């Protein structure tokens, strides 16, 4: 039971926040109590997660699996939810953001928590049905969240578009899974693995895998299923964008890891060329797309498409190295992305969340500018920051299989990405703003979050061995 404690606590926390709102009635929509419940609760769950043993694998009745890998993914999800909650703080405060103030805080928090629970389900699944239910549980709340600016046309457009795309992806996934079921005669991973090992050339299997990959490609913004991302990222409220860019991607990665190195392991060698082509196309599309973006949320959409490309590349590697490098990278990527979104929240108070909003930051708020520079370098993969270590492991996973040409291609891609990340730095330091900017102050939550994220980026880059858990457990 101990191993299920985080899952149970998470549901209870969601119920608590929803219940609090019902109990208080409509009287106090601006109350910050749910906010405090949420972040305190998430911190507690994270501490519980850290204290659980990584080396046990327990299968609970009904096919609910808890292993080292799933615990690590749960850590990513909980941290991501925690930072989303913290990030959302200024968006619910009147005057906290130029775009508008969000309302219905308890609903927002409850949905985030329930969505996170859906993600927990994905990493604990041992059969296709649970997997599917988990993916849906984590997807549907996001459609609601992206439309949380209820009077904003862009936000509603994002929500609609996301839901349409999500529906198509769901259909494809079920269609693919039905083929897998048809071939193997069972939905459990065990039976599927046995069947794959015995008949790796079965055409039904290939058809099924193709559809499932396409479906998960939507979530992971793999080319050519990435089109929705810029619009949704741009239209959704910034905390939701951050959550989609990290959690939703992480859950798709977990899904792929579970399938590719689990039941479909026997097909892995056949899939490697497909993986490499998708990876190359995805990173190129993301990097080229990001070059011209002025709106920072759109910019982050393309940037995270490119990052997904690097992650997919590592799926060509052998199980151990791929798993540990990908999970390590998810932590790194989460830290860097949230740092950027906190900076967006800070400049979004009085200005637009656009690249030109960063102008004069170097003089206005040198600390924030320094954090922006470190984050940009981390995303670009410059040592000694976490992004470099992360990319190094991803590239090593591909290099170990002998895909050196791919490594060169990806490294050159990352040079292209350095260009647009440097544009952020240039905007903050070199370009003088045309009009005098108001001094930019961070609120306490933003400050502490940025300190934590920056420390994480530096530590994971300089002393990756402190994350020994990730590298050893998964490996």
């Amino acid at each position, binding site marked *: 039971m101990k191993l299920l404690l985080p899952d149970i606590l998470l549901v209870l926390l969601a119920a608590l926040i929803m219940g609090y709102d019902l109990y208080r009635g409509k009287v106090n929509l601006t109350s910050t109590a749910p906010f405090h419940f949420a972040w305190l609760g998430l911190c507690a769950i994270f501490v519980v997660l850290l204290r659980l043993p990584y080396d046990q694998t327990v299968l609970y009745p009904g096919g609910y699996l808890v292993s080292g890998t799933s615990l690590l993914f749960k850590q990513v999800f909980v941290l991501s939810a925690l930072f989303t909650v913290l990030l959302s703080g200024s968006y619910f405060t009147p005057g906290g953001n130029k775009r508008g103030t969000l309302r219905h805080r308890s609903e927002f928090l409850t949905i985030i928590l329930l969505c996170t629970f859906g993600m927990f389900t994905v990493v604990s699944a041992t059969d296709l049905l649970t997997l599917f239910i988990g993916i849906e549980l984590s997807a549907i709340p996001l459609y609601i969240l992206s439309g949380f600016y209820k009077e904003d046309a862009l936000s509603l457009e994002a929500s609609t578009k996301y839901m349409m795309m999500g529906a198509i992806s769901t259909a494809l996934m079920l269609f693919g899974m039905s083929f897998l079921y048809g071939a193997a005669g069972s939905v459990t991973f065990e039976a599927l693995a046995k069947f794959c090992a015995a008949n790796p050339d079965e055409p039904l299997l290939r058809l099924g895998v193709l559809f499932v990959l396409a479906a998960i490609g939507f979530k992971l913004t793999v080319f050519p299923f990435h089109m929705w991302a810029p619009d949704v990222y741009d239209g959704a409220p910034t905390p939701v964008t951050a959550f989609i860019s990290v959690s939703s991607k992480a859950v798709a990665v977990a899904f792929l890891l579970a399938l590719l190195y689990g039941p479909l392991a026997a097909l892995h060698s056949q899939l490697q060329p497909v993986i490499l082509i998708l990876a190359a196309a995805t990173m190129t599309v993301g990097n080229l797309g990001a070059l011209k973006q002025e709106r920072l949320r759109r910019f982050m959409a393309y940037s995270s498409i490119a990052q997904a490309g690097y992650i997919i590349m590592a799926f060509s590697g052998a199980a151990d190295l791929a798993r*540990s490098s990908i999970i390590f990278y998810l932590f790194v990527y989460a830290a860097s992305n949230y740092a950027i979104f906190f900076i967006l929240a800070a400049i979004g108070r009085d200005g637009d969340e656009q690249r030109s909003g960063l102008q004069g930051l*170097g003089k206005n708020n040198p600390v924030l500018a320094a954090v922006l520079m470190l984050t940009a*370098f981390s995303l670009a993969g*410059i*040592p*000694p920051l976490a992004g*470099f270590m992360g990319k*190094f492991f991803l*590239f*090593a996973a591909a*290099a*170990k299989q*002998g895909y*050196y040409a791919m*490594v*060169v291609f990806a*490294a*050159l891609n*990352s*040079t292209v990405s*350095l*260009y647009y990340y*440097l544009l952020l*730095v*240039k905007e903050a*330091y*070199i370009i003088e703003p045309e009009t005098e900017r108001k001094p930019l102050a961070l609120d306490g939550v933003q400050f502490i979050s940025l300190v934590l994220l920056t420390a994480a980026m530096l530590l994971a880059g300089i002393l*990756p*061995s402190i994350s*020994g858990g990730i*590298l*050893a457990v998964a*490996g």
Partner: protein
Amino acid sequence: MNGSFLLTLIWAVPFLTALISLPVDRDDHRRIKKISLAGNLINLLLVIGLTFAFISAEAEHPAAAGAKLSQFHFTGKTVWLQMLNIEYNIGVDAISVLMMLLTAIVIFCGVLASWNVEKQAKEFFVLLNVLVAGVYGVFISLDLFTFFVFYEIAVLPMYLLIGLWGTGRKEYSAMKLTLMLVAGSAFIFAGILGLYFESGVNSFDIQKLAQATFPTEFQYWAFPIIFLGFGVLGAIFPFHTWSPDGHASAPTAVSMLHAGVLMKLGGYGCLRVGMYLLPEGANMWMSFFLVLVTINVLYGAFGAIKQTDLKYITAYSSVSHCGMVLFGFTALTFAGIKGGVLQMISHGLMTALFFCLIGMIYGRTHTRTVSEMGGLMKVMPFLSVAYVIVGLAGLGLPGLSGFVAEANVFVGAFANPAPLYRFCTVLAVLSIVVTAVYVLRAVNGLVNGPISDHYKTLTDASLIEKIPVTILLFCLFAMGILPGWIVELVNGAVHPIYNNLMR
């Protein structure tokens, strides 16, 4: 003091200097400059101490004559990351020690030469010191991973240093320089991963990798990408285009450091990683690279003739002279490699002095166009004389450092009997004539002739400006007149690399 601790200290001191200046008040420029100067003075003394310690260590344990493995002193290692056997593994041979000495001299002079930086001085010196820490780190690393990390730390701060404090088309130049160098690193990165996985020893340790035998087909593709990757920083043709723009736009100290030291990281990497670890690949590809660097040597020299801006002239001459470093390496003879190493040191001192003087002259005349100047000898005799001397060093006058290096390079290249090598050497030697043309023209336009009225009130160098110029002039003469001890040291380090290439 423990040798490896001293090495760590040498890169840690500039880094700590940067950290210490962080809390200083932004407007207290003098204090920031003093901290930076003190830090780099300490480091200069440490590096001089290291050089003496190294000479005595070398005397105690001379390398065996036929050794194929480089002998490193003051080694030490700590595990950095268990998973991929990444170590913080340090040690130095003569080449690294001499390059560190060069770095220490150039950065010390560079700090003095940037005494007049007023704009955001704090950020400037912090970045400068971080960059220098990276440079030292590269020279002491014996682990390819550590090497790469330091290498990137040395390259990246350049973007802001040029973009913020530069002149002219600074944003364009900064972006071009950074992206081209990082694209080079992309190739190096793939090459390093290849070395790790193909060696079979599962290590990034240079010494272990040097003993491993790599498959021929691996060497065939890995050598050119590593050599070209580092070659970008060494301004190899056709990837030299960042250099003129970058050096011309950079502020004085950054030009000094970049042309003086950073470009040498390229040559150092080509030698230490490319040629030392992949000897077979080197033998296969060298005639191809020979042609490229011959173009470098000539193209740089002819490019310099066309220029009218002093900084562009010096930047193109750097392309030519750095080409000579690689030219020596590609010769694949003992004297050639030795000459290449000597040329790294000589060109480092020379080009640092060039950029230092140009910065000071520009600070007075506010123009760098040769045709707008003239007669400066009358108003600033010190700077003018120094400029004449460094110009003469540039065209290889005996008694100055350039002669020692270039003589070795050309003798070494001619010693390779292959007809292509003979032919390319003859072509490259011609560059000396071209060098004489552009150097003498620039000197002539600068110091002779009538002086225009608005320059008559200009003053000569102040005391604080005379110090770096004097130090660098002293080094140029010292290396030209007494090259013996340097050549001796370089011999010891080149032998194993050469033997390894010829096995």
